[in-house]
């Protein structure tokens, strides 16, 4: 019957530790995250990958797009650490510059998708009623169509796919999942007493959304955004692998692996496709570890007072 077990005179006990720092729930989550070893390992690996993408020009002298038909499919040498591909381009330099493209696509699709998902999820979950019905029917439509088929159809209809266009296509086809998650979180928040309390003091819709809903929904949003980023990197690789992604000669990890479609390269030149494969694996794995770490950090069930 009584949910409160603490004694009121805790006040006196607290008097002793008035010097203690008061941490906001967000700070507490961050501390919990920093204690998660797997997530920190993922963080370190990801930082190394991002670092090598950013500092690619310092790490290699070769232009990733420069082909040399006199030097095709060379074995690793001092000049070309990972050999060259079927057009004589340096594999190592393509690996580093490819990280730039893959990460850019991963991050920007994530940002764009989260933005779309947040706008529609907020409208849907906050206002409910007719707006909610309309938005939810649209998401149903998107979710009923297989995402890859939809993306492939749009890409096939377009003449030239640039990175920017690619990001837009992926974001437009993948926001419904996220908007559903945000809508669900908002719906559960809407009935909470503190939201009624905010209404009772006369707070505007804007204030309730930005000051009360979003800070309380930030956990699920960040977690899903991270996992989405990993998924987007896989999508880019997959589409590039079947030649429907970013067109050559732009280096991406998916493009590099697509080289291995040739049986000769697959068999005799593992140095050409194993490194980009490993890079994808490591990036996605570490992002997922970070995502899981964030999930645990934000989950109130793991809360330690």
């Amino acid at each position, binding site marked *: 019957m009584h949910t409160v077990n603490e004694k009121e005179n805790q006040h006196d006990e607290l008097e002793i530790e008035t010097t203690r720092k008061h941490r906001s729930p967000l700070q507490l989550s961050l501390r919990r995250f920093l204690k998660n070893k797997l997530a920190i390992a993922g963080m370190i690996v990801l930082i190394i990958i991002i670092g090598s993408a950013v500092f690619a020009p310092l790490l290699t002298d070769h232009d990733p797009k420069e082909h040399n038909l006199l030097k095709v499919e060379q074995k690793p040498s001092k000049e070309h650490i990972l050999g060259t591909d079927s057009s004589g381009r340096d594999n190592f330099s393509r690996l580093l510059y490819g990280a730039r493209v893959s990460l850019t696509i991963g991050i920007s699709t994530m940002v764009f998708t989260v933005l779309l998902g947040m706008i529609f999820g907020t409208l849907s979950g906050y206002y409910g009623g007719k707006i909610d019905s309309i938005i939810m029917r649209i998401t149903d439509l998107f979710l009923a169509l297989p995402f890859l088929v939809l993306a492939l159809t749009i890409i096939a209809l377009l003449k030239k796919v640039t990175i920017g266009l690619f990001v837009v296509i992926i974001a437009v086809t993948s926001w419904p999942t996220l908007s559903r998650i945000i809508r669900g979180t908002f719906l559960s928040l809407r009935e909470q007493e503190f939201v*009624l309390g905010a209404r009772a003091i006369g707070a505007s819709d804007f204030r309730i959304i930005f000051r009360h809903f979003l800070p309380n929904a930030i956990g699920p949003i960040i977690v899903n955004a991270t996992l989405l980023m990993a998924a987007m990197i896989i999508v880019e690789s997959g589409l590039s692998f079947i030649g429907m992604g970013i067109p050559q000669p732009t280096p991406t990890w998916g493009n590099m692996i697509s080289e291995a479609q040739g049986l000769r390269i697959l068999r005799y030149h593992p140095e050409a496709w194993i490194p980009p494969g490993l890079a994808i694996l490591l990036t996605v794995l570490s992002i997922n570890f970070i995502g899981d770490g964030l999930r645990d950090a934000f989950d109130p069930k793991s809360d330690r007072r």
Partner: protein
Amino acid sequence: MTMLTKQQEALDEKRSIDEDVLVEVRNVKKYFSIKGGILQKTVGQLKAVDDVSFTIRKGETLGIVGESGSGKSTLGRVLIRLLDSTAGQIIFNQTDITNLRQRQIRPIREDMQMVFQDPFASLNSKMSIEQLIEEPLLVQGKLAKAARKEKVLEVLEKVGLRKDDLQKYPHEFSGGQRQRISIARALVLNPKFVICDEPVSALDVSIQAQVLNLMKDLQGDLGLTYLFIAHDLSVVKHISDRVAVMYLGRFAEIAPKKQLYEKALHPYTQALLSSIPTIDLNVGNAKKEKIKLEGDLPSPANPPSGCTFRTRCPKAHDRCAVDRPELLEIEKDHFVACHLYSEG
């Protein structure tokens, strides 16, 4: 035009009689539609509040008691316009607020505040105590920054919290302290009227008394008017001047506290009173007879005909199934809705 002037005249007349009435509720109803079927058609109505009228005078505390499902919380939320009423009129401080738009209602919220039941759910856990208490001032756009801080400190002291609590977050407090924060949040705007929706029912008994005393002291200091909602009569007894007993969306009885506790007329009130546990030191000495109610509260979606209490009433007779008893003034200020006391 003539309609308006007539209304105005009627209001003026009313005003001259009841200068000290702060809240007047006239025949307020709140029905929720029950939707069913594939097409979500309205298949029925849940009468959460069904034709309730009362007034609250300035400085007074009206207690409202009822089982869960009796509509008491809904009534509170309709009064503060968190829910729109289906019918009826709410007059607050001589202004009809029943049909005001949200934008028009904002300045009125300054005078009318609410304290919620669950101190663990009613505070946004992501905000510090300072932000929480300051928020109402910020929303109302009342004071400049420095004056706001001063006001926050002043209210914080009033509810018995200290200055270094400001930077803390709700998870660092116990239930009783959180309820103090909720009270501070409600009082920071200097309201005239505070609706307390079961403010102590989630607290330990020892802390209940502390919070109730605090609320009573604050009422004296600040001249507050309370609508105090609770589910048991013993809590209400401590703080109320008048008490209303609610059953299935209607008032069963409303009377000054003394009269209600000493001479309850409605069988439901009598049953509620006899269920208050007492410490009887003289065992065997005129032991109070306990009236036990049979069955559960009927569904408000499908209330019994006539008197809604008849299904559980030990004194029900034939007429109760047919006629709905009106709330009649039996003695001065003592209203009862029961056929036992109506003539004919």
